[in-house]
């Protein structure tokens, strides 16, 4: 997926970008409205993440102009403003969703996913490997032509593993991606989800290997 991030705070933009890249997305960064307009003119994006307060104007004016010129690229507004008054304004102007800073990256991810799913059909990223077809956007996995419905956490776990087959992920790393920071979860909770995924993948040539003391790894067994 190709994202455009319009955010004037360089550190925050870097942090969001690096995190997005980790998930396998391509992300371009515009620091102000003028740059954003230029980016939108030349490039095609699957999603725009738009800050409201920018040095050369209000993000909402960009959103308005963007919608007026018949672009239907989904837009998620990132706002630091106080909650009650601002939200409604940006939704009325055609934003698909909004997030209040600071946000949980997992929530941003979830919202991106939800918005993209709603607007699905334009681009399809499907991963085919070892007898499975995986559509991360729709959350659809089919194993040997038989479709399996993944729950959200299973989906996020599988997405992580299949994006880097052969890489070892520690239990803690997986926990951090799956559970929010205020959930009190034991490290063993991850085992439940690994177990479920293993069951889903039984009929494929993909296998989740436990490396004692290190974590888990997705292997393609030929």
């Amino acid at each position: 997926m190709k994202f455009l991030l319009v955010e004037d705070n360089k550190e925050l933009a870097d942090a969001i970008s690096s995190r997005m890249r980790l998930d396998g997305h391509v992300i371009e960064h515009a620091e102000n409205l003028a740059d954003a307009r230029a980016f939108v003119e030349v490039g095609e994006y699957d999603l725009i993440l738009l800050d409201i307060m920018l040095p050369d104007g209000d993000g909402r004016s960009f959103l308005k102009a963007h919608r007026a010129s018949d672009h239907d690229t989904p837009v998620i507004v990132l706002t630091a403003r106080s909650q009650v008054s601002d939200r409604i304004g940006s939704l009325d102007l055609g934003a698909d969703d909004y997030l209040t800073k600071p946000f949980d990256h997992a929530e941003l991810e979830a919202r991106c996913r939800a918005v993209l799913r709603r607007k699905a059909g334009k681009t399809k990223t499907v991963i085919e490997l070892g007898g499975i077809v995986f559509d991360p956007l729709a959350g659809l996995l089919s194993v040997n032509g038989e479709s399996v419905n993944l729950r959200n956490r299973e989906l996020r776990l599988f997405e992580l593993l299949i994006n880097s087959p052969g890489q070892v992920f520690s239990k803690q790393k997986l926990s951090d991606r799956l559970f929010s920071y205020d959930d009190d979860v034991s490290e063993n909770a991850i085992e439940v989800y690994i177990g479920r995924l293993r069951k889903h993948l039984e009929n494929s040539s993909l296998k989740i290997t436990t490396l004692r003391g290190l974590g888990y790894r997705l292997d393609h067994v030929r």
Partner: protein
Amino acid sequence: MSANMATSGSLRNRLVLILVGGAAILAYLLFFAIRNYATQVAQQGQDSILSASITSILDAAAIQGDVVEVDLPYAAFSMLSTAFDDQIFYAIYQDDAFLSGYETLAIAGVAARETVFNTVDYQGTQVRVVTASRTLIGKDKRTQIRVALAQTQDALAGTLRQISRNAAIFGASFFLLATLLSFWATSSTIGQLNRLTNSVTRRGPQDLSPFHKPVPSEMLPLVTSLNSLMARLDHTLKQSEDFIAEAAHRVRTPLATVRSYAEATLQRVDKEENRQAMRSMVRAIDESSRAAGQLLDHAMITFRADHLEQQDVDLSALIHDLVERLKPIAEMKDLTLRLHSDAQVPYKGDAILLQNAVRNLLDNALKYSPSESVVDIHVTCTPNVEIRVCDSGKGFPKGELDTLAMRFKRGMNAEGTIGSGLGLTIAMDVAVAHNGTLRLSNQAEGGACASLLL
């Protein structure tokens, strides 16, 4: 607010008092003026008849040889007859010696050809006495005849009574008319003020535009200053709104940066104690940003609740949108949000407040629900409008159901969950602003239920 404000009396009362009081004094003066004038005229009438009568008596006096002869003419008394049968007294003296009539009728010393009028008490009634004298000259003889003629004043009093009555009626009607006029004048003047007051009161809380309706020229300075006050208020409000937005931006953007970095770092750090520190950091950031957000929301809600805006809202659609928006968050915990709603739940209230209240209830349900469970949301308008959010978590701690909605009060079992303790307070405040209540309960089969009864 107006109840606490000191008033310096009522303008209407003051106006009415001055106008009616003025009219009363005027009516009273009018009455007296008419009565006095009438008394004078009536007295003059009696006096002129008395004077004519006494003149005719004196004219009838003559010296016949040595004696003085006074032949009282019939006309002298008949001209004095009245409808009230007034009594007549007379006394005739010749050179201070009593001749005829009532001796007790005292006579003042009167110079020749001079007529003197007096009002005195005689035999218990008030009489008008006229005295006059004439010098008769006969052969070698010169004598002075003096006559006193008195008449009771019954007819005069009767006439005066009648005139007084008419004057009183006239004064009272004048007073009544003036009173009516003053009420009319007052209410039409105050009416202008009231119209202005009404158009100020009827305005929505957000409406700070100037007045354009024509007003009487005397009120123009007031309206002008009101308009300039509103312009300044509008400016100040915009400024403080901008300030809050700016402050939030300045606080939240760096927090967001720190949070994103901490999260990204967490992905790379392996050492457990470092990871623990990073996690605590993220939690602290979440805690502070949530508290800041809730405080701002709470301030906003307190403000809006004071100036409640009543719009037609379809609660069913409102909550449907809200649930749709929260679905991505619910999915992160594999929670299912189930909305049971009547097709339409029309309600009159502040949509933003109601949405915020329900949002807080839903946030709580999402936070305290175990993974892969169900949160039920009921929206109904029968028998009363009710929004109920039920989860299948641990439920509210028993014995704390009454205190949980208090400011910054958190449940004993909320340890380890991020929250500010303002969520239920906000929901409660919104309910109260809409004349409703917030009811907290635990389900028999486990899980908490929060109901907004509107």
